[in-house]
């Protein structure tokens, strides 16, 4: 294996661990959040409530999943 391939694999592993790690639901939640932010950009009055709520829902779900795995 060349050093370039090894370096690319290491970079891929770092970003995989960073973005997904052992809680892929948080990555999904972030994607949903970004989609919601873009979709609600002209509805600021709704976005103010919906966007934090999306975060709270996914965080709570992830904590419950972590508890189930503990």
């Amino acid at each position, binding site marked *: 294996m060349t050093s370039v391939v090894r370096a690319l694999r290491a970079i891929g592993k*770092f970003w995989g*661990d*960073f*973005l997904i*790690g*052992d*809680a892929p639901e*948080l*990555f999904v*939640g*972030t*994607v949903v*959040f*970004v989609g919601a*932010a*873009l979709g*609600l*950009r*002209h509805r*600021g009055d709704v*976005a*103010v409530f919906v*966007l*934090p709520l999306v*975060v*709270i829902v*996914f*965080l*709570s779900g*992830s*904590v419950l999943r*972590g*508890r*189930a*795995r*503990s």
Partner: protein
Amino acid sequence: MTSSTAVLALAVFGASAVEMVEALTIVTAAGVTRGWRSALEGAGAAALVLAALVVAIGIPLARLVPIDFLRVVIGALLLVLGLDWLRKAVLRASGHKPLHDEDAIYTKTVADLSSHSGDAPGTASGANPSASARRPDRQTGSPWRHGPRDATGFTVAFKGVFLEGMEVVLIVITLGASSGHLALAACSAAVAAIIVSIIGYLVARQLSEVPENWMKLAVGVMLTSFGVFWVGEGAGVHWPGSDLMILGLIALFALTAGLLSVAMRAIGPSRPSVAGNGESA
């Protein structure tokens, strides 16, 4: 300095302090077992590489990428990182995940390094050495300045500081570039690293009494709040109160994390808790 700038500096300072406490544990273990000269050189080299990364990535990012696009991407990264820190902090605070044990990490690292003591120039002495043994001995000059160089000690200290520091670099670049305060963010991280190093040297140990989990929870709340704010700003959402909304988000997510911790503690474990459950630290 606006409130959001102060919170930004505080978030970077807290994140850097937490990660540097973890790095200090590894550097201390490397110094005790393999010699301080190589351990400190390894730590210093890693710090230089991390600083170079901030300059090489952060400055072009802030100058060349459109600010709204940058805020969405960077806000999303902050959100992933912040939520992960929050999740782990809540699980630890409620007893569903073992606390990050610096003493255990120190003991394991010392044991690992001592197993190579056949070729070690350091003072390999097994686990839990006394405070005086951990402090570099400047009176004798050995192994603080004139001791032989040791590749293992250098590598372990370098990896420890580099890997723990990578998250700090990401936080510095993301928060700094998206807010236009890259220098302030970098300085906050550097000050935290210096303060942790000085305290670590003065007390001559790996700072196991630091309330690491609460610090991680606080930083997780701040990173999540900045992530939500920047993604919204980048997408075109107009937050009420502009930058002051960050303080509102911090209050909301702090309350959420507190309630989740209490609720998880009240619910109790789903099964008898076992350390090393496959989740990463």
